[in-house]
């Protein structure tokens, strides 16, 4: 047992693991944002509210149908993704040709509406949601006690992130998607239904946010403001990783989770702001982000 900067190594490894687990939430959420921005050129400010809607959907599914966590993991993202598709068809499709700012304003307004409605019906203190039976408890790893649920979070997010990256970067469907973003007219000329692809992509990005929301419900307080606290940090993660880059979002998400975890050990009061300090530095040195492809 040796000490690093006054902290016993055991404690430090525990904090690193915790940081990785938090990073997996950042990675999941920034993945959805990066997909939406990379493919649609829309800055989806309602991502946090959609994350919140996923968590609330899990709670409501439990209340009204008795279905627990595992079915909710599939049903909630589908439900919230469907609302995302409705939003895209009703509002977003008119904004693709306009400046980024309009998409930002619209989605920000939608986020405020979703949050306000949730707060009106459910209050701000939050709703109870517990860890599913099969994932309760944990194991003592020697240097820390790791709850089973947190281990599941890492595994699930890594799987989803890698699967999404693979679909977009390595499959034909992903190739169509990337081509449609660069030159929609030409891709349409080949007979591919571009508007439908775009709608489904937005729905998928929203479903990713809702998936993260269901994963968060057992461990974080299910309250209407749960998304607004998280979304600002996630935006910083996406900016650092590079606004259009899927891989950048994933790697940066995990990396920043670890850095934030270390800050919580050495200088906890700053743990809220360290991500923004890094963002400022990265923007000065590499304005396109660490893995960015476009300015």
């Amino acid at each position: 047992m040796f000490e690093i900067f006054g902290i016993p190594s055991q404690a430090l490894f525990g904090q690193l693991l915790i940081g990785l687990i938090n990073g997996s939430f950042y990675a999941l959420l920034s993945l959805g944002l990066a997909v939406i921005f990379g493919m649609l050129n829309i800055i989806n400010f309602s991502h946090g509210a959609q994350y919140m809607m996923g968590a609330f959907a899990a709670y409501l599914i439990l209340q009204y149908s008795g279905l627990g966590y595992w079915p909710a993991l599939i049903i909630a993202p589908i439900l919230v993704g469907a609302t995302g598709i409705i939003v895209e068809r009703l509002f977003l499709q008119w904004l693709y040709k306009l400046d980024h700012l309009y998409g930002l304003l619209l989605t920000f307004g939608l986020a405020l509406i979703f949050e306000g409605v949730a707060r009106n019906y459910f209050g701000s203190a939050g709703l109870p949601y517990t860890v599913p039976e099969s994932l309760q408890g944990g194991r003592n790893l020697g240097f820390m006690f790791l709850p089973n649920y947190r281990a599941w979070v890492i595994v699930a997010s890594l799987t989803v992130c890698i699967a999404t990256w693979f679909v977009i970067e390595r499959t034909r469907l992903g190739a169509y998607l990337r081509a449609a973003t660069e030159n929609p007219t030409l891709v349409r000329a080949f007979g591919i239904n571009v508007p439908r692809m775009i709608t489904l992509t937005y729905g998928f990005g929203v479903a990713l946010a809702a998936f993260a929301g269901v994963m968060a419900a057992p461990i974080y307080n299910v309250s209407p403001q749960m998304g607004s606290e998280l979304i600002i940090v996630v935006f910083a993660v996406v900016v650092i990783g590079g606004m259009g880059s899927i891989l950048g979002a994933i790697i940066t998400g995990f990396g920043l989770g670890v850095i934030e975890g270390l800050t919580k050990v050495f200088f906890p009061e700053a743990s809220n702001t360290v991500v923004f300090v890094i963002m400022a530095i990265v923007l000065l040195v590499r304005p396109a982000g660490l893995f960015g492809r476009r300015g």
Partner: protein
Amino acid sequence: MRKTLGLAALAAVLACGGANAQQVNVKIGVLSDMSSLYADIGGPGSVAAAKMAIADFTKDHPNVKVEMISGDHQNKPDIGSQIANQWYDVDKVDMIIDVPNSGVALAVSNVTNNKNKVFIVSGAAASDLTGAKCNANTVHWTYDTWMLANGTGTAMVKTGGDSWFFLTSDYAFGHALERDTAAAVEKAGGKVLGKVRHPLNTNDFSSFLLQAQSSKAKVVGLANAGGDTINSIKQAAEFGIVKGGQKLAGLLVFASDVNALGLNTAQGLTLTETWYWDANDTNRAWTKRWHEAGAGSTKFPTMIHAGVYAGILHYLKARVELGGNPEGKAVVAKMKAMPTDDPLFGKGTIDATGRKRHDAYLFEVKSPAESKHPGDFYNLKATIPAKDAFRDPKDSGCPLVNS
């Protein structure tokens, strides 16, 4: 000079004669957190409680006309100050009430002192409001960090929790609660092994809970409130803090927090409050009216809502006694001179520092099996009488007390 002017004004006001049938016009501002983490412990519920108090009082005193406005300070001291300034200067508000969030409360207390109006704090906790930062325009109702520390802190040390590790919210309230609880713990013979300060509105406490676990303290003290406390308790259960042999001390827990956690997670938690909706028939009847006054039937009133109701009643009583439109210091002096008596807190007093004194209650959260109806959360463990529940004015450090 100011004191002489103040006394002269007071004399002039009192010399105006009896106020019985005179028209008294009052404007009250309910300043709270309407949209963020403290919105359930204060928020629209405080507005509902204020409406009830005004309706009840003006029913018996038809010569009193009361106007009420409300505002959202969003937990930001600069916004709170700006609203207070505008209300006092432009909207002619006489008294501001509620203000959960100690940072905002301290700012509004300062503004109230400068403008010589009245500020009744129901929501905020920092004992500095009647301590080093006290003034002659502020009354601190409901509760404070000293009372919480003395209630929960001392009780836990007495039952064997003599080493503590604090999880503290990094702003005025958290610091005050940590300071007062550490003092109470040390006075009762325990010791503080360490602390970690987290930003307000933190989602994830796993890192801090890990530090608490490795400290091997017998008690993990949560010097935070609202959503932060809920997250800490939820995640503490996840990390097996209590199963691992450490106890959790929720230093500030409200009925709405227990509602959000669910009894499964919250059972066994020890906490101190000064009012509980299900304690007796009067409180239950009041709660039913509170639901009908616009608070919604799925929530339960907290002691802060009760404090808003009782505080307004006592303020209006003082205004009627004085008559006319006296300045703030005069009204507060009158409130301190009159003993309090309201349906919710019973008989009590306001001491020289502005501290309202009433009994405090040590509660333990019931298990799901013991709870017979929604909102049936607490078992009463002990009653702490008013003279012991709150800090002695001599020890407060308040400049108003010549000690």
